[in-house]
Structures are given as C-alpha cells and as structure tokens.
C-alpha cells in the first residue's frame, strides 16, 4: 500500500551477545545496519573487525574455493533429485555439519588437488601427443638419433623439404657426378622427411641446393634412440596418464558422497559471511558494541520482544525519523500487487518522501500486457507454467515476485484473449468460439478507441496522483494551477467533439486562459510570466502524443494475433491430407511457442514503457535507496528452524 515507515534503531549490547543478536536480526530479516561514522576517534571506540565467533575453523575455508569444489564434484556423479530440490536444514543437521568442518575442509582441498591433477594430466597428454606427431614421420629411420653424425669425409643431414619444392630438390641431387645419397623417410603435414649424406667436397654446391629448396634441418629434442622407440615410449606415457585419469575419476566419485554436506556448508558459510559484512558497520569497545540502523516501525515490538530474551544487558532505542532525514525505501503491498514491485524496481525506487506507485501502476500494467499479448490459450499456458515453476522451484524474494508476475500476466492475457475471441490466434474462431466482446481485426476502430480511452484514463490518473501529492504537501494552489486547469482544458477539448460541444469549448477556453495566467508564475518579470504561460499551451501536443502512444496496445495485439494466424494457416494447409499432417503438428507447436516468446517480450517491454514514460512521467519522484536488511539467502538449502544458522 505504501512506502514502509521506518524507525531509527540503535542498540548497545555486550560483545559476547553480538553473534546471537545478529542471528536474530538475520532470521527476522528486517534490520539494516548503517555504517557508523565514528566522530570521537578516542581509542576506546574502534571499528569492529569482521571476525565472527560461531564457526571458528570456517575462517580457514574460503567460500569461493568451496563453491568451486562443489562444481568440480558435480562432474563425478549424479543425484536423482526432483526439480527445485533443496536440503532441509534443521538445527541438529547444522550442528553436525559444524562439527565435520575440519573434515569437509579437507575434502575441499582434496577436490582442489584433483582439479590440479586433472589439468596436469590434460596438459601432459597434449604435450605427448605433439611429441608423437613430431617423431612419427621419422619412424622408418632405423637407427638411434645420436648415431646420426658426420664422419671425416661425409656429412649426414636429417631434415624436411616442403612438398612443392621436393621434386626440384630430388632432381638436383640426382644429377650425375654428385657424390651424395638421400632417402625419403616419411611425410609430415606439409613436407617430406629426408636423410641426406654427401662428401664434404660438395659443401658449397649443397649449401645452394639446400637453400633453394628451403631445407629445414630437423631437431630431435628429448630423445636419442630411434624414433620408433621414442613413439613407443611416448605412447606408454600416455597410457600411464590415462590410468591416472581413471584414478582421479575414482577418487572424484568417492568424494562425491560428500557433496550434500558441502552444499549445506556453502549456505551456512555464505549466511555467516552476510553477517560478518554487517559486523563491519558496527562500533566496538572492549566489551560492548553499538549498532545503528533502520527497521520498519511496525516491527518495533517484535524486535524488542526477541532481544529481551537474549540478555538483560541490551539497550535498544527506536527513534522517529527527523523531517529532513533520508531513509531507505521498502514497499509493503498485498500479495496481488507485490509482484508488480519488480516493474517499479527496474525503473528505480521512488524517493522516501514520495508515494508508493505500485498500487496505481499494477492495474494498468496488468491490463496493457493482457491486451498486447491478448490470447486466451497463451494466457492459460503462461499461468499454468508460471504457477508450476514458482511452486516447484520454491522461489523466494525477487524470484517469487517474477514467478507470480508471470502468473498474473497470464491471467490478464487469458481475460483479454477471451474478450477478443483469440485462442491460439484465430484457432478458436476456426472451431467456432465467439469473442465475448468484439474481434479487433474486424472492428479496428473500436479497438483504437478502446486503446486511446485507456490511455486517457491512465494519463488522467497520473495527473490526479500528482495533484494528490501536491495537496498532501499543502501546495493547494499548485494542484489547482498545474493539474486542475489542465483537466479543464483537456476535458473541454474532448467534450468539443461530443454533442455538448458548447460546454466543452467554454471549459477549454477558461482552462487555457487560466494556464496562460498561471504557468509562468515562477518567472520574475511580467513579460516572461506571460510568454512562459502562453508557451505552456504547447503542452497540449505533448498530451496528444501521450494518448496516441497507446495505439501500440492495438498494434502489438495485432502482431500476436496475425503471427498466430500465419502459423495456423501453414498448419491448415499441411493438415489437409493425412500424410502431411505429421509436419503440421511440429510447425504449430514450434510456431506458437515462438509467438508466445516474442510477443510476451514485446508486451512486457511496451507495457513497461507506457508506465515509465507516459504514466510515471506525470508524477513519479525517483531517487530512493532500497532497504537492504540483513537476511538469510540460501542457494542449496531450506532453513527449517532459526537455530540452524
């Protein structure tokens, strides 16, 4: 209904109770600590260190390391668990995990070692495969590499020549009178391997030939025996690595049995980390600590009651917020409006002194999205799938809001679809389902009128809210000048095209004169007062274009309907005979899924736009900061009782 009223909370307690108190706050999820600027920099008060006392050994374990270990282990096993499964965490279980923490830390480190080993094995295999590829072409050289060396009179060379150059190379060596011998040994990717022997007297000639054919002297790093031996040796090494890999695999599968415990530990640690982050905002003395922050005013009694049980030595104060104090913004709305808070959040929060826009915006967003997607069957699909996944995945917080938003928008889509008689596009019409009201395709003028009418209503609502904000602040004249006179002018202009056009024209004229006289009231000189007032009438065109903007409701609704019609047409053509019917079904299924996705995206984007630009533009005051209380966020677990954290 409104922006939640906040109170300033300040609390002094013994340090020995700190963790207990923070845990209570975390479980309640309604206190946000603020950073205390320590004005008196006396030694007795100092910034608290982020060291919690609950799970001491846990400080050794880095949470990101734990996260990585979990994703490593997931490769080694498979758990059959239902969609959205979460570990149920009781206090006993939590205690049990706390006691196992040393052992689990060991498991995490083991996982890290496995990961390291695995990457060693991988890089080792790549290296060996490369070496084999290098040695393989020389395999027919039946002597150890170290024995291939020059003698007193001859030179021996091993090397490769490119495939293009090899013919010339061989021909020039085959020329008569050359005291040389060569043999082609093998083939690499882009050349041939040669062994070449010649008399030292030929050095000069040879140098030219070798250069011309780009003879590449081979290097044999890493082995001295025959290439064949080397390849066998490398292959053996690869086999050894493969065995190690299996070993790692087995070890991983063994460690996999601890994955449930690790996941619970991950959540426990991240809950603790959140708490530690708040601890950094406190001030501490040797024995006590001070916390300042925000809490919803309505929760005062609840917080007091909970803290009283912890210890006698707690002093807690709730203070009303001063006039000019800026406090964080939280919304409180009924379950039907709450999902729409996401739409406002994406735009930005209203400032704390303004009003909660959700209650006004939600009905419009609901209606507009519904018109733009506007298909009864699509609506049912959205609502059913939305409900299923929100329930099944046990979504919480913002996730749940998005889930229920999908459901609500599905309902809106269903309603409008039924009103317009659209079931899978013209699918309903083909089997004789009549629209409840009218079909926009056969009566587009009525449809356009409906869109503009809704636009008119929304724009006027926006102006009314602005006027109400002004009145609430005691700016009665502003409300009358800026909104009242505009109402008069705009309503007058509309009435001019109705039978009571005389009334309309008088209203419009009075409104216009009033605006000319008042809109320049903040200007200094008489002349600029008048010109500003006169120019303000130009805003009539702005209101006109605002209303015309609502024609998109029709256009996007049209897009959904016609795309569906395209696929239905294709399906009908293929469905004409039994043979092609098997093609018709996948085309219809894929086509309508595509249409839901594309049209829902368009409907969401343009419904948002109409709120943000046309509606919020009339009254919204942005710039609020979100209320971020300390609370429990989990990934793998569901906390059953408060004592578990």
């Amino acid at each position, binding site marked *: 209904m409104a922006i939640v009223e906040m109170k300033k909370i300040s609390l002094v307690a013994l340090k020995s109770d700190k963790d207990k108190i923070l845990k209570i706050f975390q479980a309640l999820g309604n206190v946000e600590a603020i950073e205390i600027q320590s004005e008196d920099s006396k030694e007795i008060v100092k910034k608290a260190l982020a060291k919690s006392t609950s799970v001491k050994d846990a400080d050794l374990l880095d949470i990101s390391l734990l996260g990585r270990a979990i994703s490593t282990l997931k490769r080694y096993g498979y758990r059959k668990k239902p969609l959205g499964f979460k570990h149920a965490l009781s206090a006993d279980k939590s205690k049990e995990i706390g006691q196992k923490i040393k052992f689990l830390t060991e498991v995490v480190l083991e996982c890290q070692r496995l990961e390291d080993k695995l990457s060693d094995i991988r890089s080792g295999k790549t290296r060996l495969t490369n070496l084999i590829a290098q040695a393989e072409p020389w395999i027919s050289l039946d002597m150890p590499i170290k024995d291939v060396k020059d003698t007193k009179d001859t030179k021996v060379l091993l090397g490769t020549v490119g495939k293009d150059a090899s013919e010339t190379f061989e021909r020039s060596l085959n020329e008569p009178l050359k005291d040389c011998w060569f043999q082609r040994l093998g083939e690499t990717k882009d050349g041939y391997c040669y062994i070449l022997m010649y008399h030292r007297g030929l050095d000069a000639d040879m140098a030219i030939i070798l250069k011309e054919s780009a003879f590449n002297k081979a290097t044999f790093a890493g082995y001295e025996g025959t290439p064949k031996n080397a390849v066998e040796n490398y292959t053996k090494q690869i086999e050894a690595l493969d065995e190690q890999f299996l070993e790692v695999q087995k070890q991983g599968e063994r460690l996999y049995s601890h994955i449930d415990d690790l996941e619970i530990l991950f959540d426990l640690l991240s809950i603790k980390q959140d708490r530690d982050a708040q601890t950094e905002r406190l001030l501490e003395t040797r024995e006590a600590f001070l916390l300042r922050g925000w809490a919803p005013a309505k929760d005062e009694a609840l917080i007091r009651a909970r803290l009283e049980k912890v210890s006698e030595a707690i002093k807690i104060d709730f203070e009303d917020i001063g006039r000019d104090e800026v406090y964080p913004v939280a919304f409180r709305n009924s379950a039907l409006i709450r999902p729409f808070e996401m739409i406002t959040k*994406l*735009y930005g929060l209203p400032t704390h002194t303004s009003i909660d826009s959700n209650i006004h915006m939600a009905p419009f967003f609901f209606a507009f999205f519904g018109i733009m997607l506007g298909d009864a069957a699509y609506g049912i699909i959205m609502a059913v799938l939305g409900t299923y996944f929100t329930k099944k995945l046990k979504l919480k917080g913002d996730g749940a809001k998005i889930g229920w938003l999908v459901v609500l928008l599905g309902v809106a889509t269903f309603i409008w679809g039924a009103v317009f008689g659209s079931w899978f596009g013209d699918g309903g019409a083909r089997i004789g389902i009549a629209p409840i009201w009218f079909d926009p395709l056969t009566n587009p003028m009525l449809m356009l009128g409906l869109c503009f009418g809704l636009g008119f209503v929304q724009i006027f609502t926006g102006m009314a809210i602005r006027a109400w904000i002004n009145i609430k602040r005691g700016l009665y004249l502003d409300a009358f000048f800026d909104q009242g006179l505009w109402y008069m002018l705009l309503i007058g202009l509309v009435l001019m095209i109705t039978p009571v056009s005389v009334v309309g024209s008088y209203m419009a004229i009075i409104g216009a004169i009033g605006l000319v006289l008042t809109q320049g009231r903040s200007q200094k000189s008489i002349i600029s007062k008048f010109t500003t007032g006169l120019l303000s009438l130009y805003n009539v065109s702005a209101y006109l274009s605002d209303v015309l903007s609502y024609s998109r409701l029709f256009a996007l609704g049209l*897009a959904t309907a016609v795309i569906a019609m*395209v696929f239905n047409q294709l399906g009908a053509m293929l469905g004409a005979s039994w043979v092609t019917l098997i093609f018709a079904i996948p085309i219809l299924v894929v086509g309508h899924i595509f249409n839901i996705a594309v049209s829902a995206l368009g409907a969401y984007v343009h419904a948002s736009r109409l709120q943000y630009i046309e509606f919020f533009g009339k009254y919204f005051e942005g710039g609020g900061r979100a209320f971020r209380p300390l609370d429990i966020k989990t990934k793998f677990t569901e906390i059953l009782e408060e004592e578990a954290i």
Partner: protein
Amino acid sequence: MELGQVLAIAGVALSVGLAGIGSAIGVGIAGQSAAGVVSEDPDKFGQTLILQALPGTQGIYGLLIGFLILLRTEFLAGMIDVSPEAGWMLLFGALPIGIVGLYSGIAQGKASAASIGLIAKRPEEQGKAIIFPAMVETYAVLALLASFLVVWFVRL
C-alpha cells in the same frame, strides 16, 4: 496477370523485405555488442539476448503487413481480381512499415548496442536499458498501424 495483382505482391515484397533488412542489420549490430560483453562475462547472456531481440520486431511487423495483403487478396486461394488503383493503394500502404521498419530497425539496433554497453557496466539497470531502444520502436509501431489501416480498409 493483372497490374493490380502485381502491385499488391510488390507491396508484400517491400514490406517484408525492407523491414526484414532493417531488423537483420539492427539485430546484427546489437549482437556484435552482446558477444563482446558476454566474452567478458558469460553470465550476462540472458540480459543481453533480450536487448538483442528488441530490433527484431520490425521484421515481424513487415511480415504481418505482407501476410495481411496476401490474406486480403486471397492469394493462397488463387488470388482475386485487384484493380490497378487498389493495387497501388496496397503497395503504398505497405511502404510505411517497409521504410520505417528499415531505418528504425537499424537505429534501434544502435540504441540496443549502446544499452548492452550499459548492461556491461551496470547490470542492475536492465529496466532503463530496455527503455532506450523501446523509444525507437514507437515509430515502427506507428508505421505498422498506418500500414494496417490502409491495407485492411482498401476497397478491393
């Protein structure tokens, strides 16, 4: 084959073709930006994909008008007679979404690319990032409406 029928089909070609080109270029521009952002942070795939999809609607609007012309001329059932005047009207009726679709698709692609850059730096501002390209689309929506009214109400 009559001139009117040929003109009507030319209208189909122009609305589907031009608007499709616009969307293809626009989605391409946005896709290049999106790929860049995702190479830095793969988790942003979903967010950037939505922005990349935004300039894709012009192509759909073009197809929509093209389909409506085919529907009105009963092309799939052998095509009715279309007078040359009616043919010209269908052709001109197809032009708004064809031309505006072409240029707004490209412009929206650029705005989307810039918004994808916005997401790269401030992923929490998705709502605002979507609105900038959506502003461009307004004009494609208006053109669609104009095209629809002409094509749907031309007396054949």
